[in-house]
């Protein structure tokens, strides 16, 4: 009988992989959630803690996330399940990190950071990975999220004088009159006249 009771008495083992557990241990409350979906782990942290968490993940000798694979954002407008979960967050910044250690306990990790609507901003990760340079410019260009400390934050895909952020959900797929207002007859001649 004691053999059967022993597993019940033992504390339930934390199923989360080592990097996720370490982040939770070290940062505590600013870690808002840890999720798993299809074998991929996500850590959600506040915007105040995002930079320290990224720095920790990159520099900690146990896992060394030395590669920033991707950085993007998701506009949660209308996605109630997400925005309600993270205090009415409008945007989620999504970092995909990868460790190049041969025996890493978890080679890939996703870190997310909810941002509110009014003037969304986050600290820049360019100091940690130079790969963040264009990725942050793209997120700024497409979503209007400002990265504090970015050395050259300007639009990258859209024209400099473009007045909107196209990947926001309230921006229509067909645009807001860019084609209609484009001055085809600027020279006073149409193609037919020519």
């Amino acid at each position, binding site marked *: 009988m004691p053999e059967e009771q022993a597993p019940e008495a033992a504390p339930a083992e934390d199923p989360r992989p080592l990097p996720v557990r370490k982040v939770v241990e070290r940062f505590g409350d600013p870690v808002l959630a840890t999720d798993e*979906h*299809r074998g*991929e782990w*996500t850590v959600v942290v506040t915007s105040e803690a995002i930079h320290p968490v990224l720095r920790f993940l990159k520099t900690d000798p146990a896992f060394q996330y*030395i*590669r*920033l*694979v*991707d950085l*993007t954002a*998701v*506009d949660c407008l209308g*996605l109630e*399940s997400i925005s309600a979960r993270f205090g009415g967050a409008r945007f989620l910044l*999504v970092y*995909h990190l990868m460790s*190049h250690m041969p025996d890493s306990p978890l*080679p*890939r990790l*996703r870190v997310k950071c909810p941002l509110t609507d009014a003037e969304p901003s986050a600290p820049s990760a360019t100091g940690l*990975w*130079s*790969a963040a*340079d*264009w*990725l942050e410019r793209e997120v700024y260009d*497409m979503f209007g999220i400002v990265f504090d400390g970015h050395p050259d934050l300007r*639009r*990258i*895909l*859209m*024209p400099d004088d473009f007045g909107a952020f*196209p*990947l926001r959900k309230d921006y229509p*797929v067909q645009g807001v009159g860019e084609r209609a207002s484009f001055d085809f007859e600027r020279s006073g001649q149409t193609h037919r006249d020519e």
Partner: protein
Amino acid sequence: MRAPARAKTDVVASETMVLNIGPQHPATHGTLHLEVELDGEQVVRCTPHLGYLHTGFEKLGESMLYNQFIVVTDRMNYLSPLSNNFAYVLAVEKLLGVEVPKRGQYIRVALAEMARIADHMVWLGTHALDIGAFTAFLYAFQQREKFYDIIEACSGARLTVSYTRVGGMAQDVPDTFVPMVRGFLEGFLNEALPEIEGLLSKNRIWIDRTKGIGVIDAQTALDGGLTGPCLRGSGVEFDIRKAEPYSSYEDFDFDIPVGVRGDTYDRYLVRMEELRQSCRIIQQALDNMPDGPVNVPDHKMILPGKEHVYKAPDHTQPYDPVHPYGSIEGLIHHFKVTMRGHGVEPPEGEVYCATESPNGELGFYLVSDGSGYPYRVRVRAPSFMNYQNLPRMVQGLMVSDVVAVLGSLNVIAGELDR
């Protein structure tokens, strides 16, 4: 008093000149704009400007059904559209939690490796052309056309193939597939590749133009987000096919070539060896090709074959319960899969699926809200990440070297402007 002539010359010599390369220039491989600041012929600063295509692929993805977006992925990379199809459907399948049968996986591997050969051939041809070697360009394009013949026999299209579907392939490969591919490999390995290598690998001009040019060390390459042959050229042995095998890549035996110096010549050598390794993989796929279906056995996910939609039912034959669709049933089935609220609807969640495309890590990050439309489609395109390293790679080089380094990164304008 007028300044002496010599002093005036000195002032002129200390000024820098801005040279615009592109947006429409043959060496920029699409629409890119390089603002190059020159001191004489030496590059002081290089500032790339993107955005001339305005494709909006990611925004389009949010208003298209999961299967509809496949045709858009073709257009992102016009050198290897099949690899993009493949990467996208793998991501959707991960989101759905399904796995394609072995035969489908092997066909995908064989075709993805052929797409890698075609991509590397176009890269090699245009890269050599940029540096001034015209003959290699012709040899390389000839091989690409042969690959197009094979893909045309499979899918009916040559460039924008859209051959994969969520949960499988548009159709199985034809009976002529195996002999066609074997014939292609024989010609490629025995004639084309030795000929091209003979033209370039020990060519004095080629070596002078590429060796020690555009050097990037392993640490900087990892930091700057380089992937694929460019990262391996810097000596980092990283290949997603080995590190995180997908679609049965664990069944195949192949090597990962790596460079030592991280220069343009190493990136060339790495790609040439990758061509040989791809041939090895294709041969193994053909030798060990399993029988069976290519699609998952789920009629609510898979589009019916064209013959079930367009062909009139043959009433002289007995009813076939395995393929029950003659014409109208097939048509209804097709509509049911493609109509809003009836087709593929992955559960709420998100996935990131990385594949080793010819130019590096091609990843799709998909967010599902439970409907038939992806809530967010994000493409982690290798060209975009590789290309942001160009300014630091060309600094201090001659202006003609910019073209050589640009070519060695294999810039795809469709991937830069998402």
